[in-house]
């Protein structure tokens, strides 16, 4: 799809965020403006512990920026919105709920009637390959399976934009590769706008339609890369490696 045909789904304008830590002002995000297109897989890449999650939390409405505004389909948003879903970095599955109850949680909050929400939740449990584990508790699942529950939970509410905050950061390398393929498969089957935060360059190039490279603290947009490689991508192909190196050379070191 040529760039001019792309429809802007989410617009960020001059977003800045700072905190007061030990009586000193600490700038986390500095003046970020960004357009996110409909149904694209956008990766936000940046050095560790700086601004990425903050930016995602602002988009999701978990924190309010000190400056700037966000627009969804041209409409200004202030807090959280049910059209924006999130897969959390630290899983955030509720240990007292079964897989089924965790996945249907969003629908329950939206007061969807029980049989209806069971039906929808079951679809997404099947989609992420957790059929048969509906009655298990999170403590009985492996790390990869837990993250699948988190993904299903976010999808179940049928959000138009899905935020993913380093969802695979705590998985071992093998599981991580498997989950990267998985998330791509799910995205193909159920097209959404995805904003995916990571500090892993290979993961970014493997998944992203576009990569927004952030600078070190305070985070600002350093460069945006369009990744035109065909999917599924081959991580050892020369073109892939060239892009990976280019981004790597341009990345600020984390403190």
């Amino acid at each position: 799809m040529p760039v001019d045909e792309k429809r802007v789904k989410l617009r960020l304008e001059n977003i800045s965020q700072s905190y007061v830590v030990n009586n000193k002002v600490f700038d986390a995000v500095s003046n970020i403006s960004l357009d996110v297109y409909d149904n694209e897989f956008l990766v936000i890449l940046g050095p560790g512990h700086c601004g990425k999650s903050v930016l995602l939390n602002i988009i999701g409405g978990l924190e309010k920026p000190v400056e700037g505004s966000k627009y969804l389909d041209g409409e200004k948003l202030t807090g959280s919105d049910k059209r924006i879903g999130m897969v959390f970095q630290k899983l955030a599955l509720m240990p007292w709920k079964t897989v089924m109850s965790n996945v249907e949680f969003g629908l329950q909050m939206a007061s969807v009637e029980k049989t209806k929400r069971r039906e929808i939740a079951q679809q997404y449990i099947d989609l992420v390959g957790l059929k048969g584990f509906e009655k298990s508790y999170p403590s009985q699942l492996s790390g990869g399976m837990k993250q699948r529950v988190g993904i299903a939970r976010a999808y179940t509410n049928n959000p138009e934009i899905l935020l993913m905050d380093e969802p695979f950061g705590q998985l071992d390398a093998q599981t991580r590769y498997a989950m990267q393929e998985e998330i791509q498969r799910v995205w193909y089957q159920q097209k959404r706008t995805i904003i995916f935060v990571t500090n892993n360059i290979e993961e970014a190039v493997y998944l992203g339609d576009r990569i927004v490279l952030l600078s070190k603290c305070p985070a600002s947009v350093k460069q945006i890369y369009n990744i035109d490689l065909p999917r599924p991508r081959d991580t050892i192909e020369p073109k892939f490696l060239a892009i990976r190196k280019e981004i790597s050379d341009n990345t600020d070191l984390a403190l």
Partner: protein
Amino acid sequence: MEKIVIQQGIVLSESEKKEIRQNRIYKILPVVSIILLSALWLFASKEVLGFPSPAETWERFTQLLEKPIKALSLWGHIFVSLQRVFLALVLSWIIGISFGILLGWSEKCNALFGPVFTAFRAVPPLALIPLITIWFGTGEGPKVLLVFIGALMPVVVNTQAGMRNVNKLYLDVGTIFNATDRQKLFQIAIPSALDAIFAGVRTSASAAWMVVLAAEMLGAKAGVGFLIIRGMDSGDEALVLLSMICIGIVGAMLAVATQIAEGVLCPWTRKGSN
């Protein structure tokens, strides 16, 4: 987790045999302590004057089943004590959990009641016996009230702590799904505080059992605490010892019962079940 079934006729490796031996030790050790205690008891009853032997205690036990004290058998007295405990516990759970949720969830309520409650909590329930006796006498009501106060404190303190420590991450999930404050309270905060609340419930059960005995010892016509005092007044050491054993066994059963209740009501705390 699947249970490992050891099939017959299968050759076990050395390490497996060692593991089985070690598991056996954990089954034997509790029995060892009971045997040791019994031996010590037997020895003490022979050496110390006025220390009833196991046989004498057992005799007292069978005698008490046939010859009631104040028209109640041993079971009757235990039942009277338990009745007081249960009534007080149910009241303390209903009021304590509600109050604890209020204190833990609302900053304003915490600021309003917190300091007074903290000071009041430091007064042991036994110190309230004189005032309660002066005001309300020694009937059934004052005893239940005393046990209620003793059981209330741990429930409120634990519930409050559980509600204060709700993981912000779970509340964030609620925010993302546009949950109302009411939904966050009932669907996220309270369920996530349930294990802390149950810790309070467990403590309250053992506290209630202790307070009821103390209350009964200071003036009652029935109950296990009454039996102990009756034994003391009539120089019946076997009755005192028998009552103590009953107190221990019933207390342990209460603890096990609350633990089982927790497993049933909060199945996720049973790690690795299924």
